[in-house]
């Protein structure tokens, strides 16, 4: 086929020749690239919902779309380097194709107890005349919709107004937990507002760089 194409090109005018040459190079490039092993997608789900966090009794589904021969490596890992011992399932997808360098991707699925604590944190602040606002989305692809809120509390020594899933609650500065969001999903959009002190109003450098709210969460099967 290559010979036929070349013969065809040799009879064509120069401009067409160049265009065809470019097309040929593109085709060959695509061919060369397609020879490489590739992982187009690799995700974990539970009950059909994408997640990287499950409870011990959950079943885990693994989906991939690859070019090459896939091998899935699986092992459990216990990490005790932090405040609490944490358990993970490590899934490594290895894709081989001929003698090319294999493609590799790792997903760590965290395995939580039925009830656990979680830090909700956002670090991009905006300011109004009298308030500091943090907002963002707690990742649904990491949390799915399996973990629900039991309580939330401010551990920053300041009060916060919290908006989540259409509800609004007030958190006091004295770390007393609020149960106003009980039963709502942990994942999804959050917004936190707090009044600025006079010092913070005149100098935003004195305002907090992030909001950290401590939540108690539970698996919805509980």
């Amino acid at each position, binding site marked *: 086929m290559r010979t036929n194409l070349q013969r065809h090109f040799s009879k064509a005018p120069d401009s067409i020749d160049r265009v065809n040459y470019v097309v040929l190079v593109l085709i060959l490039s695509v061919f060369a690239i397609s020879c490489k092993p590739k992982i187009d997608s690799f995700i974990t789900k539970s009950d059909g919902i994408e997640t990287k966090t499950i409870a011990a009794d959950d079943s885990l589904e693994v989906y991939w779309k690859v070019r090459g021969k896939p091998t899935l490596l699986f092992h459990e890992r216990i990490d005790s380097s932090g405040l609490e011992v944490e358990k993970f399932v490590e899934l490594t997808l290895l894709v081989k194709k001929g003698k090319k360098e*294999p493609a*590799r991707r*790792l997903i760590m699925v965290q395995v939580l107890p039925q009830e656990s604590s979680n830090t909700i944190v956002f670090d991009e602040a905006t300011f109004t005349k009298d308030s500091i606002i943090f907002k963002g989305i707690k990742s649904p692809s990491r949390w799915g919709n399996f973990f629900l809120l039991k309580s939330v509390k401010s551990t920053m020594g300041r009060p916060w107004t919290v908006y989540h899933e259409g509800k609004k609650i007030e958190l006091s500065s004295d770390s007393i937990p609020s149960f106003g969001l009980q039963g709502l999903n942990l994942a999804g959009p959050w917004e936190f507002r707090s009044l600025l002190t006079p010092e913070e109003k005149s100098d935003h450098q004195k305002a907090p760089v992030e909001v950290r709210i401590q939540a108690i969460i539970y698996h919805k099967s509980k």
Partner: protein
Amino acid sequence: MMDNVKTIVLLMFENRSFDHMLGHLSLEKLSPVNGLKKPLQSFSNSFEGDLYPVYNFPKDVRLPFDLPHEYDEVAAQLAWSEAQKKFTMGGFVKAYAAFTGVGPNARTEPMGFFKSTQVPVTSFLARTFCACDNWFCPLPTGTQPNRTFAFSGDTFKHKNIGLPTVPIDADTNLFSWMNRNGVRWRVYHDGLSFFALYPSLWPLVLGSNFRDYEFLASDVQNEAPESAPEVIIIEPSYQDAPHVGPDRPNDNHAPLAIGWGEDFLRRTYEALASNPARWAGTVMVVYYDEHGGFYDHVAPPRIDYKLPDTSYTFASLGPRIPAIIASPLVQGGSVCSTLLDHTSVLQLMAEKFTPGKPYSDTVEKRKAAGIGSVSVALTNPNPQPAPPPPSQPLAVQSVLGASIVNGPSGAVSQSFEAAALEMIKQYPNEVKEKYPELIQWKTSVDNARKI
């Protein structure tokens, strides 16, 4: 004290941050450096509502891929807060997620660090000699500008370029400076030298002052003091350089496992310490060109630098890197917290070889801005013999068969390959003699990349 310095040795590795390599020193209470401490949640980044704390790599393995660490990505990692008027160091996970295009795992590579048992040689040297915990790479950008800055005190580009035409100042590059000032020097390279990326230096790279790394130990032991080099630059085998066959990169550039570099560091230290008389006057600086995308918790100081053509101004230094001054002339087990960057080495050069005359205008400006000299750590009047390094075997898992078929993908590796090909073309005989493995590499590449 400078009179006691007879040999300055520079060993620059690639792409690791201080907390990643040496943060364990404070965590394990081995040395009072400004590193990691419990609770580790205090050293974290946030992303999409979650905390991503630092964590100990469970084992030393090849990472799935290199981490983002080019100019724009470094800016994202430093995360300048306009409200706070400071770098928050909070963008390492964000930059990684943007780079990979997938959500990060709960334990994500930029936040990983090594324990002392995983980097036994680095850890040993840091706690036996002097650990520098306030040494930053000079510029918040990638490899080429930082290395150029390290070896000349200036750079003409603020980003990596993928061509074998990296410019370096003809007067202030370290080799010109040493030649001009009568300093005896030598480069020991394990594979193709990084200086091959500067075409203006090719006559040197192909000359007799560039020697194969395998000669280091015998030269140190056998060379007479009056003819031995006063400055030795030691180059590991670069991940981005052309490789063929069993040749093994050991420059610590991710995604490499760290064990290869640890072994190289051990062999280098053993070689230098193998001549006790010579070691007594040796100052060995082990440092990294830049942080490589790995998290560090200390924000770099706001010291600016304008490119010579004034086309760009950097507003700060780059992230903190691991640096060790291994020498009998430092206080054993000391920590140097003086602000240092790669030009601190050039300051040391000037203090030793041209006392009273600064290395260059740029280096002098940085000194005036508060950047100290390596000499600040040389305060020990009673040198001790070199203790032996840890002799334990280093277990490294690796994937064999990294292919040369696909060719280089990043700017630095493209630059390396283009430089190698151009050198072979322009200096075929010299390359055959100096870098015979490059000829074999080119044959393999020519065969492998035929469509």
